[in-house]
């Protein structure tokens, strides 16, 4: 029967442990499917009647946008949930003219491309953080503004 010295056993155990830890760490760090939500939002200082079919964004987002931008009311035009696999960019159409392309570069790291009328407007690479939305916005007609709000969610 082969005998293993204590030092050799310890060395073998440590190296095996290191390999296991490395495997777990790499598995945890590997990109997984990202679950995101994109909202197309319209900001204005005028109140729009309920019959217009617009609904205001939730109060939390409303307050945050109001504290950053000058507009007082923010209406949600479109809301779409989607998933971004590790190796497959996703295209999400938010309106006839507004489309975003999201690509996962690494864990929680994405590239967002905003297209207006089919033309690329801006491309952004960023690290997604929970509860920290990415807001892409611009001014619009009649002293209004449009916003694309991308947040990380649990469910697509």
């Amino acid at each position: 029967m082969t005998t293993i010295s204590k030092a050799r056993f310890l060395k073998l155990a440590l190296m095996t442990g290191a390999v296991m830890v490395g495997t777990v760490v790499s598995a945890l760090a590997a990109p997984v499917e990202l679950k995101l939500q994109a909202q197309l939002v319209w900001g204005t200082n005028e109140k729009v009647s309920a019959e217009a079919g617009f609904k205001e964004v939730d109060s939390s987002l409303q307050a945050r946008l109001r504290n950053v931008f000058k507009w007082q009311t923010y209406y949600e035009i479109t809301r779409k949930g989607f998933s971004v696999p590790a190796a497959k960019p996703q295209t999400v159409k938010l309106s006839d003219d507004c489309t975003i392309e999201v690509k996962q570069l690494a864990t929680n790291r994405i590239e967002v491309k905003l297209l207006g009328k089919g033309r690329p407007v801006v491309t952004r690479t960023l690290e997604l953080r929970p509860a920290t939305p990415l807001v892409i916005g611009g001014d619009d007609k009649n002293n209004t503004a449009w916003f694309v709000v991308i947040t990380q969610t649990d469910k697509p």
Partner: protein
Amino acid sequence: MKLDREMKLQAWLDGELPAAEAREVEQLIATDGEFSALAGELRMTKSILAGNEPDEVVVPESREFYFSKISREIERLERQPAPAARSVWSSWWVRILAPVGAAAAMVALVALPNRQGSGADETENSVQESTVIQFHSTTEKMDVIWIHSDVDGTPDVSSPDLTPKPDRNDNN
């Protein structure tokens, strides 16, 4: 034969013969005059040597010999191979932790590419007329990219979807 007798006589004088042979030698000395004369001669020689032979001769050490000893010792030490420097690889824990550390570094390099502390960090503006402003609101915890249209205020993104509905509502 004669030599053998002489050797026995010498051994007898030194007290090295067994008792039986010693008695034979003593008889020869008593009966053989030549042998007796030889015994007397050897006994006298032995007594002379035993009384005058110095126990230990001490040779005085000269100055040159003293320094030559020092020189030889120095040369001997210089010829000895220098003890090998203790390699860091000789420690068992270094031999174990080195591959583990290398593996961890490789995992970190593979698993954490382009990881930076800040959030949004790169903007490529494709609209010539626009000015892009980017910032992070720490109070509201949001990353903001603001695209300001310098031309006519009409964004290419959302205006066709947004403006008609409020207008229709106003008309109603």
